[in-house]
């Protein structure tokens, strides 16, 4: 524990998934950090448009035509005209880890002025354990210069594998439309130098702008739902994935971290457009949260897929009456798992090492 080993680059084990509708100019700023890695670009919107990828990057690009071709009828589960389409990238990746970032997110600087390598921090987060069963008041005990505090049981100090690393944003914070309307000028300037595990049994709003996860541990749970074109709701894709993921992580004994790294979020979306998209979500949320807080997954659900399918059954049973949308969503969740297993045959029967925790 005395020496600090260099962070493994994981360049052959990690894919960077980027949804885009405009262009990928932002990659220029990230070049020193991203260039060693393979990119999966999911092009949303008009497939006849050509997205230019800056030279020197190794990538595969999928537009709507590709998605339809690869998934056939199952393509219905992938959202159209919404960044939720990015989850197609998770499905089609063959790597162990995924890092996903929005195309309006740039390299941030820490308080000393140094540029933050967000990817490196996410990798550190994913490769060190999480501590969901007891809150450490000094935050991440595995960080340099920190440790478990007095009173922290030794039997819990090994931690559990980390499935998700949720990063944050400087400049434009991830506010909902009502908050954006009330505080259009608020900028997040506070750099909080901490990473922490979200405790077991606690839900949180998972933002997809700056997110990394262990695809082998939790990939099938990262379905970003039915949003955008033809759907009654938008801007809840990552929220939905986050609640499903957290419930399943809690059940399987996996950890979810939040905090560092920060990226610089440059673009504030139009709050009026956002309000229209979020409107239903703001009301439905009030039903969704109690649903997720009280979800119980049976002990024999020992894989992510089984957990997710069980979850889809409960969504249909309990949320179908909130709105018919949830019936469609439950069906889409099943389609997603079918498509995932089709594209990832070896993981279909893999049991998670730890099994369900009591």
């Amino acid at each position, binding site marked *: 524990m005395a020496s600090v080993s260099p962070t493994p680059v994981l360049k052959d084990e990690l894919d960077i998934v980027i949804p885009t509708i405009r262009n990928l100019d932002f990659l220029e700023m990230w070049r020193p950090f991203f260039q060693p890695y393979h990119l999966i670009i999911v092009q949303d919107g008009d497939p006849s448009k050509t997205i230019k990828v800056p030279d020197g990057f190794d990538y595969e690009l999928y537009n709507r035509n590709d998605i339809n071709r690869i998934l056939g009828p199952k393509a219905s589960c992938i959202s159209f005209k919404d960044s939720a389409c990015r989850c197609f990238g998770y499905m089609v990746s063959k790597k162990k880890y995924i890092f996903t970032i929005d195309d309006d997110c740039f390299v941030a600087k820490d*308080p000393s002025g140094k540029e933050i390598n967000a990817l490196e921090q996410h990798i550190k987060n994913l490769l060190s354990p999480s501590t969901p*069963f*007891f*809150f*450490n*008041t*000094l*935050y991440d005990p595995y*960080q340099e*210069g*920190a*440790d*478990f*505090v*007095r*009173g*922290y*049981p*030794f*039997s*819990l100090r090994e931690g559990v594998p980390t499935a998700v690393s*949720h990063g*944050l944003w400087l400049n434009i*914070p*991830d*506010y*909902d439309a009502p*908050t954006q309307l009330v*505080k259009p000028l*608020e*900028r*997040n*300037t*506070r*750099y*909080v*130098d*901490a990473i922490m595990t*979200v*405790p*077991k*049994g*606690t*839900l*949180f*709003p*998972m*933002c997809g702008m700056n997110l990394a996860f262990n695809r082998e541990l939790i990939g099938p749970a990262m379905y970003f739902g039915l949003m955008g074109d033809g759907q009654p709701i938008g*801007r*809840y894709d*990552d*929220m939905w994935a*986050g609640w499903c993921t957290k419930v399943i992580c809690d059940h399987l004994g996996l950890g979810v971290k*939040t905090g560092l790294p920060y990226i610089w979020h440059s673009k504030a979306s139009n709050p009026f457009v956002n309000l229209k998209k*979020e409107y239903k979500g*703001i009301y439905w*949320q*009030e039903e969704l*949260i109690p649903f997720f807080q009280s979800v119980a997954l049976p002990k024999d659900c020992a894989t992510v897929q089984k957990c997710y399918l069980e979850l889809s059954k409960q969504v249909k049973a309990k949320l179908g009456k909130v709105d018919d949308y949830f019936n469609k969503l439950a069906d889409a969740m099943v389609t997603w798992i079918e498509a995932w297993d089709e594209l990832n045959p070896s993981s279909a029967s893999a049991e998670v090492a730890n099994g369900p925790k009591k």
Partner: protein
Amino acid sequence: MRKPPTLLSLTIDIALLNLSHISDLSFLPDHVLLELFLRTLRAGKLTEKILKLFVATGKDEILSLISELNIQLILTPVLPTINIRDDEVDIVIGALHLDLTSFMEDWRAVFSRFHLIIVQDPDLKGDLKIPGGFSFDVYTKSDIESVVGSSSSSVVFSGYSCRYFGYLVSHKKYIISIDDDCTPAKDDKGELIDAVAQHITNLMTPATPFFFNTLYDPFRKGTDFVRGYPFSLRSGVQCGLSCGLWLNLADYDAPTQALKPGQRNSRFVDAVLTVPARAMLPVSGINIGFDRELVGPAMVPAFRLAKEGKFRWETVEDIWSGMCVKVICDHLGYGVKSGLPYVWRNERGNAVESLKKEWEGVKLMEEVVPFFQSMRLSQGAVTAEDCVIEMAAAVKERLEPLDPVFARASEAMVEWVKLWKVVTSRLSNFAA
């Protein structure tokens, strides 16, 4: 034919248009000033800044017109969620050292506004040295005995537990307590941290235990609830306990301290967050604040290690009372916050020496944590006192078979509630 405008009226038109750029009106002749004022009123352009401009001219006609028309400057004060007065706070210091001079001097700027309760460790022989200029009460062994009785009570106020006596006899709403080997720390901008003010802020702003906000405390300036945070949960609940942190010597146990003797905490994490409901945490008594009315009875001095000593890593009394408070807050719907403020914790003691004694605490934690994590209180327990009694019964039933220290803990919890009721009613009779 319409009369053409006069030169004066045209000038006043232009002046009105450019009023915001004018910084001085005192050179204007009286009749022009008056005309300008009336036109400003009619145009609806009388802002606070412009009113001040007119008042600054000192011209009587303008001033009398202002008072005749009852034009007033309305100040909109920024009201905090709750307003905590200085006289609602007691600072409780457990004195484990006789000479408190440097400690008090270091904290003077922060402490001098408040009333202090200083409790001398009954095992500490001699007289306390306290500098002047503070408002305080000192309680010694004899005071403790006169309240508690000198017969062996299961509630023991020695060592770090002496401060609980201060909690008992205080009649203020808020208590802030800091170990006597801590001094004010500096934040990441090099400014001295007012730990008391930060604890007060934590206690007076709502807590949000039912859903985790990824930008931490949403009530802090410059931040808010993030997208996806349910609106029905945004008003938050009352905060019962505020747990601060430590720079320099962090609150590690003896094994960790012995393993990493050179490690110092230099990471200033600029956040306060609510520890979510049902998540347990190790509460360190080194730097805390709490709402005595809400959770006072739950701050129980009940868990004493057989060889408990005078160094923090030889105790777990605060870990026990902290978990009691957390379970009770979760049950009663109050919040517990952790994070800022930081204090600077100074060196003392030899962790390796303490290792010889500490193993007992370490071993017992393994039983204690699962107990608290699974503790559920009945619907009938609606006050902190009720909750403590129920918990005491559960401790006796489930933990006593494991180690006699738990039997003593259970008795102490019951005894504490009795003491609390007696002392509190005595104080309120006195005050009435």
